[in-house]
């Protein structure tokens, strides 16, 4: 499965995603430059974490005008898989590819710490390989991760089952104490209606190797590969 990792000015988890895909998952991967208007032959586009354009104005507000984002929107509209992590999620929100917006954390401080995630859906390309009932331990690192949606958007998210990850306790209870940033309904990750675009604040690439203290992040990438292989198996390839 071929991956592309977008490099915006100020991205700083691009190399981390690249590393995990190439060295841990052993899949082909290439960088996609923000100034390019086309997406080459890849099966999944990753918008990595970082501080695109310094997060000046609002996180993701400037990056979403990059030429590559028009191509990403087209890629997504054609059913391509798009994974936005942290700043990548913020860019997807600013670009309107996912509903809602991010506010600064309720603590008004940057937070880098482990979180436990309850998986709300196992039928997405991003979660299909997660063992049922397993709470995932994946770290966050952000200042603006306090997810907000207006009541109408929120109803739609519920109706369409678009919430994929919620902050939870270790045993999977979604309670206020487990919410690290004030996110509405403990929301940590959502998909679009079609289910091919996921935005999540936690960083799966930071916990995909045992030496770093955890491997739960691998499930996200392995799900993508399993989904793609399944689809390839079904199709004419």
């Amino acid at each position, binding site marked *: 499965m071929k991956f592309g990792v977008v490099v915006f000015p*100020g991205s*700083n988890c691009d190399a981390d995603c690249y*590393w995990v895909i190439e060295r841990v998952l052993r899949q082909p991967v290439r960088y996609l430059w923000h100034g390019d208007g086309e997406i080459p032959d890849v099966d999944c586009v990753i918008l990595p974490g970082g*501080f695109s354009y*310094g*997060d000046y104005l609002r996180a993701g507000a400037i990056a979403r005008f990059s030429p590559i984002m028009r191509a990403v929107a087209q890629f997504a509209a054609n059913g391509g898989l798009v994974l936005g992590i942290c700043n990548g999620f913020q860019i997807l929100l600013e670009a309107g590819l996912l509903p809602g917006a991010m506010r600064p954390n309720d603590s008004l*401080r940057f937070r*880098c710490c482990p979180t436990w995630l309850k998986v709300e859906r196992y039928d997405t390309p991003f979660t299909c390989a997660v063992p049922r009932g397993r709470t995932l331990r994946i*770290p966050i690192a952000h200042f603006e991760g306090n997810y907000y949606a207006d009541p109408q958007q929120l109803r739609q998210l519920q109706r369409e089952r678009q919430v994929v990850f919620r902050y939870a306790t270790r045993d999977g209870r979604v309670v206020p104490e487990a919410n690290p940033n004030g996110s509405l309904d403990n929301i940590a990750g959502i998909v679009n209606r079609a289910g091919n675009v996921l935005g999540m604040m936690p960083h799966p690439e930071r916990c995909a190797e045992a*030496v770093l203290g955890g491997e739960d992040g691998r499930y996200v990438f392995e799900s993508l590969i399993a989904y793609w292989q399944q689809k390839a198996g079904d199709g004419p390839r």
Partner: protein
Amino acid sequence: MTPEQILARRAWRQMALRDEEYHRLVEMLGRHPNWTELGMFAVLWSEHCAYKHSRLHLGQLPTEAEWVLVGPGENAGVLDVGEEMAVAFRIESHNHPIAVEPYQGAATGVGGIIRDVLAMGARPIALLDSLRFGPPEEPRCRYTFAGVVSGIAGYGNCVGVPTVGGELYFEEPYRHNPLCNVMCIGILPRSRLRRARAAGIGNSVILVGSRTGRDGIHGATFASEELDERSEERRPAVQVGDPFTEKLLIEACLELVERELVVGIQDMGAAGITSSCAETAARAGTGMRIDLDRVPLREEGMTPYEIMLSESQERMLIIAPRGKEEAVLEVCRRWGLEGAVIGEVTGDGHLKVFWRGELVADVPVKALAAGAPVYDAPASPPSDLEQRWRVPSLPEPTDCGEVLKLLLRSPSLAHKSWVWEQYDHMVQVNTVVLPGADAAVLRLKGTRKGIAASCDGNGRYTYLDPYRGAVLAVAEACRNVSCVGARPLGITNCLNFGNPEKPDVMWSFREVVRGMADACRALGVPVTGGNVSFYNESPAGPVYPTPVVGAVGLLERIEERVPSVFPGPGYRIALLGSTRAWLQGSEYLKVMYQLVAGRPPEVDLRLERAVQQVCRAAARRGLLASAHDCAEGGLAVTLAESCFSPEPVGASVKLPPELGNAAGLFGEGPSRVVVSFAPQAESRLRALCVEHGVGLLLLGWTVAEARLQIRCEDRVLVDEDVGGLMAEWQNALPSLMG
């Protein structure tokens, strides 16, 4: 101002140059300088840039080892770590800026040290910060502390370099003079090592990064004076950090190095264009001709004086091969950075500055970069030194459990996650041992190796005895690195002192350097560079003499790293090394009696070396389940911290009679490590200890019930729920900071 007016008004004095220094530069120049030239000398001959009061003494420090690729004198030290890889690292202070503007002062400190490491051709992979503030009960001290932490976070997080460790103390003498020392570590393939040298006549001088504005003019001079009420007026010296541009600068510079477009590269820190041009040319024995009309400016109407002395951040000076200018500028453009060819390398040994077609400054680079005087300032011990060593006789505590809790919530000992959760400590996916352990451990991608790093320096010890305090700081930094199983390869030091023109300050400085030199020699660790920060002094007095030691170590195999907490029940607990401890200078005296008193212990450096060797050998052989340096707060605090694993573990400990008192529980001393190990490892560990002549005192066992029990003969000294102790330790800083 004309040279005549300068002379008539003695204008050098307002630039903090002494009369004899002015006469010295006139002699070197062979004439009176003009205004721009005077400014250039004033900054490069400031204490901050020229090390006038320290250089004579720093020569004692050992700087060599077979693995040292670059020692002091460059932007950062570089060590060979094998497999064609090298590690670059340095520590630097940003004390005066944080006193004026905590957030931006800390942010620009981070930016500056990152560029020092970048200037060696290395990718910055980790930051550590060593911070000192006044009592956190004071709102102003809390404001400074919170601002500095968020400045480090704001810059480091954005630029994508993880902050993986550091240290934090709160003491009265830092109330008006807080300290912020930042250390950066970078890695590079040996073949990409670059120097800050303007070699090759005819090569181009290229300025890359932010535009030059009026900010920070005379910042270096500012760092070379005491802070007083007038400091407020000089506030324009504060600069604003732009981590976004810094991130682009990192990527662009590394690409330039990789594509062989760099002959020499230098950070533009203090004194901006003046220092970077003069220093690179001086190192290469060349000269330079620059044209100020080609410098991209942020503001209109800037004078040559302002352009030459601007300390605008996020700029690098690149010396590029002649004919490759366009290739360099193309890389800059691709990264959205401005670049400008501002001059060329010449062979005449002069820095010649042109502006609007006129020669506005013409100075020999050697005089600028290396002509400052070296002072052997008078030194004498403080008159009250021996008084400081007196400790009144004190009663034994009645409730040791309560004392333990008090110590655990003392802000200097308490859990620091309130700080490091604000730092991205994981970006770049190398952080194997997270902040909070004895040393941070980073894997070295593409190898099986790891890098360990720690920052240490207890100012209270150094205040009470500068020589011993410095030895203790070096010993502790190396011990912390050894505790995780790594071999200390080198240290970088940041020496924070008051006004060196005062004999007692100078005496402490000399004693500290002497102590460091002795400790480094005994432990076989070279000093590869660092920074001296004087004038950390206000009308209320100087800071504690505060040497901060940043140690870097190498783990041959990352799997051999040793955790600092007990892994679970059923392990043997022992005290490795010395069993002696003293209350002199301890946190116990400060917390219980508000006393900063007593002469800190002397370090037996042979024993220290042996203890560290045992830690590393035991780690290599897989004998240790955990190792934790027994430091501030003593044995009781170290045992408690060892229990504070994510799944709290209990410990049942029995002390020998001589340790069953306040000194035994809460006393401090070097060469001691609390270790745990599986029972079957005991005989091999003991054999290793015997071989190195190091003691191993069995203390007890780890147990499933999360209680810490410390007994001595028939007495129960401590019997506390680990969860309760942990809560005290964890909640202390958050509840102070709200």
